[in-house]
Each structure stands twice: as structure tokens, then as C-alpha cells.
């Protein structure tokens, strides 16, 4: 399941349905807001989301990942709103029968969501300045 949420991911109950005894490997990734960016001190990060489309595209990424890597489960949460350094911005969990696939799948999901989801982030710096973050694959992904 893919969800955009304005609530802290830290406080969510993220234990998904894990009863499947075929699942031998689980990997969980959490990406947090960092306190520096390009040498500048970051005081907060604003995540702006086109939530309906982001959730639709997010579910497509998870479905593709399940099919491509033959894994059992994949879930993701992505924050919206203003976050402080140290807060979790994105959370991904993958379960599979074997261990190799969970890492490949989790990395695939993170790479895809970075350039496919309609999500934008603006950094606010200590000096009062701010700026939209340009994804490294932003140019390549634009049509």
C-alpha cells in the first residue's frame, strides 16, 4: 500500500500483514530530512504533494516492483507538509521469500519514486533564504 500522509511517520503503526510464512527476508528503508544541504544549514523542509496522483503513481510503482522482482509485499509512506531535520520523510518496506530480492526491490522503489511521484520539496535555510530542491534525475525524467 502506498500513502501520502501529513502525520509523523515515526508514530504510525507500520507493522503490515506479515503472517505469510513464506517471507524469509524483510527490508525497511527510512529517509530522514538532513540538517545540511550543499553546505548550508537547513532549518526545515516543506513537502508539497499532488496527493491523488502521487498515490496512484505510487501504487503503480509498488505493483511493478512486485511483478518485476517476484516479491511478496511492498509498502510505502511519504510525508507531506513542513518537516524538521531528523523527521522521516519516506518509509519503504519490502518482504520476499529470499533476501537478495528485498534489497533490489527496495532500491528500485526508491529510485522510481524520486522522479515519478508529483512531490516537490523546498528547503528553508538558517539565513531565511529558501529554495526548491532539484532532483538529480529531474531533467532526465522531464519529457
Amino acid at each position, binding site marked *: 500500500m502506498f500513502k501520502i500522509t501529513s502525520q509523523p511517520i515515526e508514530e504510525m503503526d507500520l507493522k503490515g500483514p506479515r503472517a505469510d510464512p513464506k517471507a524469509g527476508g524483510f527490508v525497511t528503508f527510512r*529517509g530522514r530530512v538532513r540538517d545540511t544541504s550543499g553546505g548550508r544549514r537547513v532549518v526545515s523542509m516543506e513537502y*508539497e504533494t*499532488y496527493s*491523488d*496522483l*502521487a498515490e*496512484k*503513481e505510487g501504487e503503480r510503482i509498488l505493483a511493478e516492483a512486485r511483478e518485476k522482482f517476484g516479491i511478496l509485499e511492498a509498502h510505502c509512506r*511519504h510525508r507531506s507538509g513542513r518537516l524538521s531535520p531528523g523527521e522521516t*520523510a*519516506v518509509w519503504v518496506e519490502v518482504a520476499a521469500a529470499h533476501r537478495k530480492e528485498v534489497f533490489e526491490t527496495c532500491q528500485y522503489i*526508491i529510485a522510481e*519514486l*524520486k*522522479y*515519478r*511521484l*508529483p*512531490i*516537490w*520539496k*523546498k528547503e528553508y535555510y538558517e539565513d531565511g533564504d529558501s529554495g*526548491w*530542491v*532539484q*532532483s538529480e534525475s*529531474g*531533467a532526465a*525524467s*522531464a*519529457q
Partner: protein
Amino acid sequence: MSAAKEIELQYFALLREQRGVSHERRTTAAANPRDLYDELRSEFKFSLPPENIRVAVNGDFTDFDHSLKDGDVVVFLPPVAGG
């Protein structure tokens, strides 16, 4: 150009800031998102060229040659940076 139609526009991130609103209704003769973006870009001085923009119509991604019709909800998406 084609017949005038009323469409709904939503703006996010840099385009929202440059337009100054999140939503608007607009009457346009633009036949497709390409013409519509050109029209908006010259009127509101958007800094992003169309090759850096993706478009969604009625809640899903589409291309710039998609035919627009009355009542469509159109969103131009600046370069994204999820995660």
C-alpha cells in the same frame, strides 16, 4: 486553436508561486496542453520551458498533444523531487 472551453488549472511548487494561486478556472481556445502551457507561460512569465514540465489531465499523466475538452482539470508539473 479550437473552440473556447472552460478548464480548471491546479498549480504546485514553483508554478504555484509564479502564478500566485493554487487553482483557477480559465477559458481558453488552446487545443492541447502544449498550446495551453505556451499561453500561460507568456501571460504569467513562467520560468520553466515546456521540456522541463510534465502534464496531468483529470488526475493522470498524459502527453502535451492530448486533446483538451470543456471541464478538464489540467496540472502542469514542475520537475519533481520525492523521497
